[in-house]
Structures are given as structure tokens and as C-alpha cells.
């Protein structure tokens, strides 16, 4: 994967190795972007696991692929496609997941939205006369070639989303844990649900730019699920989830830098190992 002539490989001296990591601008950008994404995914993911909306999150991650391929076809910046289509996907999910449906009907609806999004994404890629490596990196992510303006966009969106979540955290927690009591207590449960799906869409759009549309789950679900197993306290859980996501991202990027295998493989495997550890230990 890496062909730079300045690339030296592992030197068996941790200080030198860490310094090597920060030598190249592309790696600095990748680490900055990875950090932003991990913090955001850790927070939003914790709420998503709490609300049992894993399938919805997965479906949104699939729409991220559609967004990116549509943007490539239309010739607009990929980030526009990610954020636009994920927002639309969140609205579509909120619309199909009515409050009175059975579990089976709701999952069929979510699955149909996801399959349609993927089918459209594939159509756009075919119409684009897709460069196939481009398709792979849309689906499975790449940490090469992230520009500083992309990092800035990631930072702004993440900051906005986290502020919104922080402001709504208490009612959102209440509505997630016990929707009926929350509704009786005057909390706008439906509105919060819609708002959370939109925030989730944004988070997914951010994450897929690093991990690719298919591997979003590794940062969004797995660290959060491990945190939920370790502690039930909300604040500690969110902090732990962020810490795990950060650790996995940094280690994954570093490993990918020093080896030939893709970053998505390292990030998913590391976070899965963390989850298994959490399950075994608790």
C-alpha cells in the first residue's frame, strides 16, 4: 500500500517509530481525522446502543455509500453527498418506523431502505464507470489522501453535533431508557427520536469518510457495546466508549501504517478484541 521512498518500516525503537508516524502530512491528517471521528462515534454510539438502534445505524451507513457515489457521479464534493444523503436516510427511517408497527414490520422497512440505498449506490458507481479501487475505498475506507480542509469540515460537524447532543443529553437519556414515563413527564419523545436519527446520520457520514461505509460499525457499535457491558453509569459509559474508540483508531492507523494490510481490518479486529475482552471479563 505504501510506496514512499522515505518509508523505513519498524525500527524497534518506540520513540523513533512514533516520530515516524507524525512525519508525513497525510499521516498527521489521518490521525487528526481519526481522533475527531472516534470521539464523535464513541458518544453517539453509546446512545445508539442504549436505544437499540443498531440496525438503523447500519442502514444509515449504507446510505453513506449511496451519498458518496451519487456525489462522485454529480461531480460535487464527496462530503456533500455523505452529509446530504445520510440526512435524507435518517428522515426516511424516521418516516417508515412509525410508533405503532410491530418489530418485524419495522425491521422489514429498515432493511428495504438499506437495500434500496445500496442498489442505488451501485447504480451510481456503474454509471460513473466506476474506478473499481474507488468503490473499494468508498466501502472499506482509506486513510490516505485526507486533506486539511476535510479535517476542518469533520471538526466543525463533529463539534456542532456534540454540542447538540450535550444540550439534549438529559431528556434524550430519559426518553431512551423509559419512553412511556418520559412522554408522561412531558418530554417530546418522538421529536427526540427524529433528532437523534439525524445526529446519527451525521455521525455515520463522518465515520464513513475514514472507515468506509461498511465498517462504520467498528467505531460506532463495538466500543459502545463494550462500554455498556463494563458500566451502566451514563457518564462513565460515554467516557469509556470514547476512550476505547480513540485507542482502537490510533492503534489501527499505526498498525496500518507499518504494514501492508488495510486499516479497516485492523480497526474492526481491534475493536472486536476489545468487545470480546469486555464480555469475558464482566
Amino acid at each position, binding site marked *: 500500500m505504501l510506496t514512499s521512498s522515505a518509508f523505513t518500516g519498524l525500527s524497534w525503537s518506540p520513540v523513533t517509530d512514533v516520530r515516524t508516524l507524525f512525519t508525513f502530512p497525510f499521516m498527521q491528517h489521518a490521525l487528526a481525522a481519526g481522533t475527531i471521528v472516534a470521539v464523535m462515534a464513541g458518544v453517539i454510539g453509546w446512545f445508539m446502543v442504549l436505544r437499540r438502534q443498531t440496525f438503523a445505524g447500519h442502514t444509515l451507513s449504507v446510505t453513506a455509500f449511496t451519498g458518496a457515489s451519487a456525489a462522485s457521479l454529480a461531480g460535487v464534493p464527496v462530503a456533500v453527498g455523505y452529509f446530504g444523503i445520510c440526512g435524507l436516510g435518517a428522515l426516511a427511517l424516521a418516516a417508515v418506523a412509525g410508533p405503532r408497527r410491530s418489530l418485524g414490520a419495522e*425491521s422489514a422497512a429498515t*432493511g428495504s431502505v438499506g437495500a434500496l440505498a*445500496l442498489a442505488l449506490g451501485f*447504480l451510481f458507481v456503474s454509471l460513473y464507470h466506476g474506478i473499481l479501487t474507488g468503490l473499494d475505498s468508498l466501502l472499506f475506507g482509506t486513510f490516505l489522501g485526507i486533506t486539511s480542509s476535510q479535517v476542518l469540515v469533520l471538526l466543525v460537524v463533529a463539534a456542532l453535533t456534540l454540542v447538540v447532543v450535550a444540550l439534549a443529553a438529559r431528556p434524550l437519556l430519559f426518553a431512551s431508557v423509559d419512553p412511556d414515563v418520559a412522554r408522561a413527564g412531558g418530554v417530546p419523545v418522538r421529536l427526540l427520536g427524529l433528532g437523534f436519527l439525524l445526529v446519527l446520520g451525521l455521525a455515520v457520514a463522518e465515520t464513513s469518510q475514514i472507515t468506509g461505509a461498511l465498517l462504520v460499525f467498528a467505531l460506532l*457499535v463495538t466500543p459502545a457495546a463494550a462500554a455498556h457491558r463494563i458500566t451502566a453509569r451514563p457518564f462513565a459509559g460515554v467516557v469509556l466508549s470514547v476512550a476505547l474508540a480513540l485507542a482502537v483508531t490510533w492503534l489501527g492507523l499505526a498498525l496500518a501504517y507499518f504494514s501492508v494490510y488495510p486499516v479497516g*481490518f*485492523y*480497526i474492526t479486529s481491534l475493536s472486536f478484541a476489545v468487545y470480546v475482552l469486555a464480555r469475558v471479563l464482566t
Partner: protein
Amino acid sequence: MLAQEFMRNALVAGSVVGIACGLVGWFVVLRAQVFAGDALSHVAFTGALAAAALGIDLRAGLFFATILGGVVMGALGDRARTDDVVIGTLFAWTLGLGVLFLSIFTTNGSGANGTAGVRVLFGSIFGLSTADVRTSVVLAVVAVVVLAAMARPLLFASLDGAVAAAQGVPVRAIGLAFLGLVGLVAGEATQAVGALLLLGLLAAPAGAAHRLTTRPYAGLGLSALFALGSVWLGLSLSYVFPTLPPSTMIIATAVGIYVAAMSLPPLRRLVG
């Protein structure tokens, strides 16, 4: 259209895959296991690419992985219904492994092309050989026969697990066997519409059928019919407009049927 051999192969394979998906999908939606089906489709991707990386027959890896995945998922679930967080965590890792195999395959593959990943993800129904079609037909028949054999206890266990268990129905074993069967069908459908899109064939026709009727036999029939219709219409559209990929058109038709069914009232009220 029927004069072309590739088109005949695609229609035959697509039809059996559609019927199998429609029938199994009806139970998947009834048991609210669409997410498990989705996870199995990702397992299919990893299995096929692992086989490609190892240089053995793609389909061996595909079916081995999906059936194993189904059984593992059934075994991991504490109760009859598997935990969606467990599923999500497992399949994130499975996909990560798939990416590893993809990169091994594309860097080491001797004389192989770099499109294997795309083919597995999005299917290649127009590229099926007559031998492929024969295998699909045999496997689909096996899947449908197994489903028919376990249909009554499965229905009972899905609708009311506690009562069924009290009556001596082996609820857990049936749940396991069913996920294994979903794995088999997922492997089948991967060849036709690809690992990423088979969810559309499992969920959309069945979702539409559940919306229109609650009667089991009518629902199963409708679901199979919708899936079959989606495959035929999708293939024809793709034949007429060659720029549109067949898997996209099949899924788009299936989702179109689903949306139409959602906007109709249940059949019972239509008929009277």
C-alpha cells in the same frame, strides 16, 4: 431476449433464488430477524473472499461461511431471538476480515482480476454458467423442501415460543436450523444479486406480503410471487437498458412493490 443463453441462465437461476428468498424471507420478517439476515449477507462476502484468497472454489467458501454464520448466530443468542448488538459487533469484524482477504487476494492473485470483490458484493447474474444454474436449482429445491418440512413447528415457535416450548416443540433447535437455512439461501442469493443486496430480496417482498395478509399460506405465496416478479422485471429492465445493473433493478423493483403494498390497506379490507 430468451434467445440469449446468458439471459436464460439468469432467468432460471433468478427464479429459483427469488422463490427461495421469498419463502424464507417471510419467516425472517415474521421472526424479526432481518438484521440477522443482513449480517449473514456480510458473512457471505467474507466467506467468498476467503475462498478466493486461498484459491479454492468461491462457492465452497460462500456456503460454508453463511451456514456456519447462521448456526453461530443462533447459538450465541441467549434466547430464541439474537441480540442485535452481538450481531452488529460480530459482523463488523467479519467485514473487516473480508477486507483483509480482499487485499490479500488482489495483491497475491495470480492472473486474477481485481473485480472479485465487486462481483461478490453486487452479484453477477448475467455471468452464470449452465453448471452454476444447475447448482442453484438443486440448492434452492433443498432449501424449499427443508423449509416445508419444518414449516408448521417453525410457525408455531415463531408466533408463540413459550407455548410451543411447553407443547414439546424444540424451539431452540428449530431457531438454529432456521438460521442455518437462511445462511444457505443467503449463499444462493449472493451469486444472483450479491452479498450487499440480497437483503432486499429477503426483506422487501416478505414485508409487502406481511402488510397485505396475516394468513400464513397466502402470505408465503404472495412473498414468493413478489420476489419472483422482482427478479423477472428487474432482469428484463436491465436487458432493455444495458447501463442499469441487473442487481440494482431487481432490488429497485422489490422495494417498489414494498412501497406500493405499504400504501394499500390490507387485502382483507380490499376483498371485503
